[in-house]
């Protein structure tokens, strides 16, 4: 197994790409993909630590994260469908009604 630092760097880079994506993209579907990228970077980190420590708890946590991420995306896509029905678009910059 390569040193643990390599895994930490890889998952930090993936996580940062996800964060930057959430901050700069304006398409609802792409936002969901970026959030998934963040969660999967964390999954990678958990798996790397668990393998390094020979400890199963970290691997089990990954399953919890996968289940929760699936539930979250299901709700997120439902919200996007609801918005698409009302605005005919998934561009989130159209959503600016809640201002003064």
């Amino acid at each position, binding site marked *: 197994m390569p040193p643990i630092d390599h895994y930490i760097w890889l*998952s930090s880079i993936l996580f940062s790409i996800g964060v930057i994506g959430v901050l700069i993209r304006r398409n*609802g579907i792409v936002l969901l993909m970026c959030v998934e990228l963040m969660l999967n970077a964390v999954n990678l980190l958990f798996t790397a630590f668990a393998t390094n420590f020979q400890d199963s708890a970290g691997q*089990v946590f990954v399953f*919890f994260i996968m289940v*929760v991420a699936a539930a979250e995306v299901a709700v997120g896509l439902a919200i996007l469908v609801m918005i698409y029905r*009302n605005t005919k678009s998934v561009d989130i910059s159209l959503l600016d009604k809640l201002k003064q």
Partner: protein
Amino acid sequence: MKTLVLLFISGIFSLFGGIFGLKKILPLFATVALATALGYLFYDSNYGLENLQNMLIFDNYSTTFIAIAIGSTLLITLMSAKGYSYNPESIGDIIGLMFFVLCGVVCMVSFNNMVMLFLGIEIVSIPLYVMVGSNRNNLRSNEAALKYFIMGAFATGFLLFGMALIYGATRSFDLDVIRSFSATALQTSPTYVSIGLLFITVAFAFKIAAAPFHYWSPDVYQGSPTLVTAFMATVVKTAGLGAFLKFIIYLSPMLGSDWYLIIAIMSAATMLFANIVAVMQDDFKRMMAYSSISHVGYVLMALLTVNKETQSIVAFYLIAYSLATIGIFACVLLLNPDHNKGNGFAMFNGLGKRSPIIAVILTICLLSLSGIPPLPGFFAKFSIFKQAISDHLWLVLVAICSSAISIYYYFRAITAMFFNKPDETIIAQPTDKNIAGYVVISITFVALLLIGVFPQIIGL
């Protein structure tokens, strides 16, 4: 444990009851179920603490915070028959989701393992995204749901990354093990620990809406249906602050002075920023959002000094804050049951003449939030200031200044009620048919006065 099972079964029953035509009795059923859950909670707490495989521990701490959450939900549920009238065919779903949120609250405040903390936060968040967007055809509700969803999912990512780093340093998710490892972990991998704690703090700050991570909160509070806003402002805040305090109590050996300085600065920024911006708001629900952000700032101040008193101080603050907030949102619901109109300050114009009962109760609630004696809001703030003054004098000065600012915007609503002429074009007359709404505001009124005059009756 019995409480958790009962809440979960009630949630399933409400979902099916909505399908099989039991919509009329669901609000009543939910009230009875919540009262039973509250009874079981106190009954179980007589037998000392209950430890579920070191994953969840039900002790005095969790009982207090679960009781505050269930009690607030009980008051909110009483109004659900009229409060969810914008979408009457899915009232079963909304009440069911509310029960699931409470299951998450139970996990959040009684966790003893990072897994349960993560699952609790998610079980609270995911049903709430749906509840916020439950007014399907209203674009504002849709927008609020999407904003809350993106911010919530983003914060979850930070929480998990922080947990992964803590796991990397301590090799366990069990908080007892993490605490016993903390000295070794701080020596061998200090970077993991400090970055991990910072990320988890950021995630908590997102969830409880503390500055500078509060930007989602005014939009979401304004766009959600009024009852859901009340639910978020009380139950979810209670759960988030309860979990954060428990996290701090557990991990206090790992937290350095830098970390406490970050929380102190966050608290000062939250109080000042929220109170100054609230002055400029024209929408009442948006103002209430900034008001609830500022109250998070005061509670963060109490989290800086962790001793035996902290738990009861925070719990008393949350009880005072939740009662007043529920009273205010119940009054807003009585005045403006139609969810498509705005909630400008104009809806209060001349309320003192049109409906003196609502006007007086709303005034008492607003005065309690602003911290005027002899209402519980004053004693709650006073005990927080008293605890913080020896270590953080500057923070107490900031808090007193921002309390003074907050009096301006609370009194803006009060002066509108008693001194402005009613504006016939904008205001709806309060509907007298909503008896449940009047019951709720009477309960909050009596409770606020009782707790204000006899603070010891809640036994904290």
